[in-house]
């Protein structure tokens, strides 16, 4: 397998590295040239080195699953995805703008509801949203920030336009893969890091810690920060443990915490009970507090909501923040940005049809074979219909679903997701991808340099989710200097 870019053809799609056969993009010139000079043996050796590095780290991963295999469930491709720094700065600005507006929106929804009173977002939409939590009405978290950690999924269409596909404001995961992928490529291509100016990503845990610390209700003391996990059987447990360890925070489960009569949260330690200031919780809203939400939850802490409402503990993300990543709310984000910031969105939304609206619904039902239909409240690519790839029976099923609960569905055109060269057996072929940057927000905003690139490893597939045949790549924000 030797790479020859003149035979690499992304076809009708936008390729992140090669603009047309034989012509690498400017920011990717050096790496494309470098890869082409590698012999088949050398390239194979690099991929092996990466696999070895993964196996070594993989020990950490698989400990948490049954059995003795050491395969990481999520394959890694060594060819990085390149984004020029200039383009990235604009994206960073766009993400900051978007998060700022979304946080203003969430705070407004749980307090004055000006946006509803002014007729921008219909009231019934909020009332009908599963993710709007009445228990949060009137709450006022520090800085008015509700979504402190967000993972927004970005995609690029055929013409090169980057869109926000969705926002994940609940408990987004994947950031540990971003960091791990970087440490693997550093081992595999050290010489490239000498030649390129590639923005670092491993400062994320430090930024996360600073952001969490800024939320502490006792700002004068050294804050006690904990990461709260549902436990070892959660698929992201490794990430929880990793982030806790990197931040020097305690990794706790619900049973480790208790809320006192003073409405403060304490953690049970061998030295006795210790007050907790900030909880980075990776437990979903409905399991947080059996007093308020699901009574049968054993993952949460009784009284946690009381403590949070009293301002004695910070929760990141705040409960109820998920209301803004409802897929129907998503379609209003451009209006939300305009309303709160009086700005046009820097990164556009994917044009969407709301099935709730009669006219739009009819358009959707008539064009199911061309559209992607998404349920309002799912993530991970579940419950979705990709029209052009679906069978007639699947489409009929969705006709019924949409008719039964139109509020729960939106539709979008099928995007021609951009591609990136990926090692597939003995060849390098284009594969579709997306990007999940992570945004931290409290009184300041931080955006990761790049993010997690997910790639659909099956030829032609548009589904990048790890559970469904996706892999990942390192993402390089490359400073080419000049303009």
């Amino acid at each position, binding site marked *: 397998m030797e790479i020859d870019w003149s035979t690499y053809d992304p076809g009708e799609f936008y390729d992140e590295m090669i603009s047309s056969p034989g012509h690498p993009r400017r920011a990717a010139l050096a790496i494309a040239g470098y890869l082409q000079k590698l012999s088949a043996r050398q390239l194979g050796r690099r991929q092996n080195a990466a696999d070895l590095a993964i196996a070594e780290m993989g*020990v*950490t991963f698989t*400990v*948490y699953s049954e059995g*003795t295999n050491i395969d990481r469930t999520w394959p890694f491709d060594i060819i990085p995805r390149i984004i020029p720094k200039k383009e990235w700065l604009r994206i960073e600005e766009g993400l900051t703008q978007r998060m700022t507006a979304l946080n203003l929106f969430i705070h407004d929804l749980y307090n004055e509801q000006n946006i509803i009173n002014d007729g921008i977002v219909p009231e019934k939409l909020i009332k009908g949203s599963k993710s709007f939590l009445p228990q949060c009405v009137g709450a006022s978290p520090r800085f008015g920030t509700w979504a402190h950690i967000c993972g927004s999924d970005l995609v690029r269409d055929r013409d090169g336009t980057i869109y926000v596909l969705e926002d994940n404001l609940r408990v987004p995961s994947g950031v540990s893969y971003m960091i791990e992928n970087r440490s693997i490529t550093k081992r595999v291509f050290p010489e490239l890091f000498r030649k390129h100016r590639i923005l670092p990503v491993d400062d994320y845990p430090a930024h996360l810690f600073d952001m969490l610390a800024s939320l502490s209700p006792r700002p004068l003391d050294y804050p006690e920060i904990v990461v709260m996990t549902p*436990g*070892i059987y959660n698929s992201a447990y490794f990430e929880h*443990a990793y982030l806790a*360890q990197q931040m020097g925070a*305690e*990794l*706790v*489960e619900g*049973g*480790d915490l*208790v809320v*006192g*009569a*003073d409405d*403060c949260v*304490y*953690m*049970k*330690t*061998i*030295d*006795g*009970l210790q007050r907790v200031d900030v909880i980075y919780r990776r437990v979903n809203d409905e399991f947080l507090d059996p007093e308020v939400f699901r009574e049968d939850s054993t993952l949460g802490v009784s009284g946690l909501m009381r403590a949070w409402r009293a301002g004695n503990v910070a929760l990141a993300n705040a409960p109820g923040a998920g209301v803004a990543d409802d897929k129907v709310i998503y379609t209003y984000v451009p209006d939300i940005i305009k309303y709160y910031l009086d700005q046009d969105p820097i990164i556009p939304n994917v044009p969407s049809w709301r099935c709730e609206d009669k006219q739009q619904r009819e358009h959707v039902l008539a064009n199911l074979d061309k559209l992607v239909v998404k349920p309002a409240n799912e993530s991970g690519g579940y419950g979705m219909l990709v029209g052009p790839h679906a069978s007639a029976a699947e489409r009929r099923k969705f006709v019924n679903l949409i008719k039964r609960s139109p509020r729960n569905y939106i539709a979008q055109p099928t995007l021609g997701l951009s591609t990136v060269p990926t090692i597939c057996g003995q060849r390098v072929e284009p594969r579709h991808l997306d990007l999940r940057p992570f945004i931290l927000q409290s009184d300041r905003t931080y955006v990761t340099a790049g993010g997690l690139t997910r790639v659909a490893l099956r030829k032609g597939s548009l589904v990048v989710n790890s559970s469904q045949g996706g892999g990942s790549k390192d993402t390089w924000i490359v400073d080419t200097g000049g303009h």
Partner: protein
Amino acid sequence: MLSRVAERLYWTARYLERAENTARLVKVFSSMMLDLPNGVGLNWRQLVDVSGAHEHFDKNYRSSGERNVIKFMLSDPDTQGSVISSLAMARENMRTTRDLVPSEGWEHVNELYLFARKKLTGKTLLKDRHEFLSEIVMRCQQITGLLAGTMSHGPAYQFVRIGRNLERADMTTRMIDVGSATLIAPGVELERLENRLWTYVLRSLCAHQMYRQYVRRRIKPDQVLAFLLQNMIFPRAVGHTLGEIATCFEHALPHSEEPLRAVLRLQRLVAEANAEQLRAAGLHEFIDLLQLEFGNLHQLISGTWFSLELDEAV
């Protein structure tokens, strides 16, 4: 350090120690059954009684033949304290505290569990039981050594040490029960038999040579008993294990006053026992008493460090 983490480390060590000592117990009992003459009244059921889990046995097994008892002690996943369930519990507890234990520790525990599970499914081990049990004992020792040699001896390790020593104390008393001749049918001429019994017990605890160095005379039942109960430098003697626990309490852990008082009291009880008198009468009852006290000590440990009450907050 989180209470939950401390508790899991403590149980990891207890279960590892229990797996090892159950293997030792079965090993010594098996050779006694082979070597001792018929007619001394020894039978497999007595092994169940010594293990302390006879209620569970009676509920789930009809006859107490060798096959059933071996299954009960080694491969029954539902028997608390069987080798396989002890290893499974050690593994579960360690899995969730991996951050504090060197990764080799987890790997060895995991492999040991998988090894035991493989060996214990299918045919009951009759032929190579001895080898299997020796390997379990050896590998448990290996893990104990690994933890001692690679974990920082901070609070996390102290909980490992407490768990190991408390379980060891308890299991050593069960071994003593085997030697206490209560197993032998009345009327059998005891004198020569008894020496052999205590030799088995010493061997099963790897204590034979240490005893000889200490006593420098032939096996005498009273002295063996005193050695296993009261010796302060032999690691499997009850006196030593209690001393270890007291050291952990005293030097390394917060709020340890109450458990420390309890362990010192227990140490005195053991130190003041008169082996000769006990052997003449009441040894079995004395052992029951000790086991009860070990249980109470566990409750105190648990109350002090593992399960906190809310009122401590304010």
